[in-house]
């Protein structure tokens, strides 16, 4: 367990920096987490983040292929927004756990 400070609020995160409680997340925090990953968030980024949070809150599994089929964005576009490791980066910025699809 560790603590991180975003927008002046102390947040509990795991060793890899993922939020332990997704409900404390705000859009303003997302902007700061994105900065740590050297990303500037656009409206399209937020559309993706909202999609991920909605799916996560519904208890559904998150996968890159699933995002590609969501209608929000295709896989190429997802990589364009969150280069390198889009699911891991997007989940971190969205304040949700690292997706468990990789088991």
């Amino acid at each position, binding site marked *: 367990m560790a603590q991180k400070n975003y927008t002046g609020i102390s947040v509990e995160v795991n060793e890899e920096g993922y939020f332990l409680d997704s409900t404390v997340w705000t859009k303003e925090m997302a902007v700061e987490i994105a900065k740590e990953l050297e990303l500037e968030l656009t409206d399209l980024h937020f559309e993706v983040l909202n999609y991920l949070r909605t799916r996560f809150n519904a208890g*559904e*599994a998150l996968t890159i*292929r*699933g995002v590609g089929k969501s209608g929000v964005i295709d*896989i190429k576009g997802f*990589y364009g927004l969150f*280069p390198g490791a889009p699911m891991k980066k997007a989940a971190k910025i969205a304040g949700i756990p690292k997706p468990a699809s*990789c*088991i």
Partner: protein
Amino acid sequence: MKKILILGAGTGGTIMANKLRKSLERTEWEITIIDFEKTHYYQPGFLFIPFGMYTKKDVIKPKMDFIPVGVNTVFAEIDSIAAEENSVKMKNGDIYKYDYLIIATGTRIVPEETPGMLGELWQKKIFDFYTIDGAIALADFFKTWKGGDLVLNIADMPIKCPVAPLEFVMFADAFFSERGMRDKVNIHYVTPMSGAFTKPRASKILGNLLEEKNINIIPDFYLERVDNENQKIVSYDEREVPFDCLITIPVHKGSEVISRSGLGDDMDFVPTDKFSLRSHKHENIFVIGDASNIPTSKAGSVVHFSADVLFENIHCAIENRPFTASFDGHSNCYIETGHGKGALIDFNYDTEPLPGHFPFPGIGPFGLLKETRMNHYGKLIFRWIYWHILLKGKEMPINSKMDLAGKKLA
């Protein structure tokens, strides 16, 4: 008569048929199992075929040998499940009604999901070893191959037995060394994960093992397409890896039965309660094995451990009691590392694989997360256990629940 219907007579369906036929009165319960294949494949054996260690006859037996007397067996293709009507429709139009349904239709590889995969090089320079035909074609190819870039690529997760690709590259290292041509073969392990395995500590230890064996890991590579003309694979972020021989672990999906029934997620896996193993949507549908979406490995050992839980909970459901068994996600995999040695990992939903001893604390005989000869024998003995004990649903001297004793936590 009340009816239990089991879809799929693979590992999970066969185990459940055996367990339930023993416990349920024949005069009260009719049990039916359906599969379109008459042959039972010992899938873990597919790994050994490309290297000439097993042939087809070592991994097949008739399904009927494992289905107990008193179970109706139907060999035909399932079309779909009509969950609201408690019935299953077959391709030939037959209908089967049920009181309880067990879905055990497994997972399948879908190479056509990746553009170019089934192009002109398919089964010429591109092979899979997750099917019997793929494994045999690859064995033939390796007999005369002169060497070059051997690229193993995992297209996406989840896959069956996530350690099988690691074992494959370590076997390849040993195989080409023994033939005196290791210097002519460059082995690349190209994965969508950030390292060799899904769980951090095992990933580090297994990653070191690959490095020692001079196997090049290319992580975070998410496959977009195969370029047949230029013999390379291309990722969504435009990275390229050239190959002379591509071993693909294609995208996995659940059975087409699930998509036709509208019971699956994006990848046709059935949303299932990870503790009780009951379908999220339907009270009288249970799911075992690779067909479910529970967050643990898609492996025979998981099927075996979860069968105990499912068995108990089906009895609870039948007798109208709350569920008393809860699955912990226990998975236990022998990992072949080549040259007659192997490693072993043991983990569940909450605890990642740890070093130590198994199954008896401090004694073993199997060493966790380290290369030993004993672990290799464990894997070879597993085939005998699979045919003679596991499929028949008999007791094993291993607890279904994972044990922390004997493990190094720090």
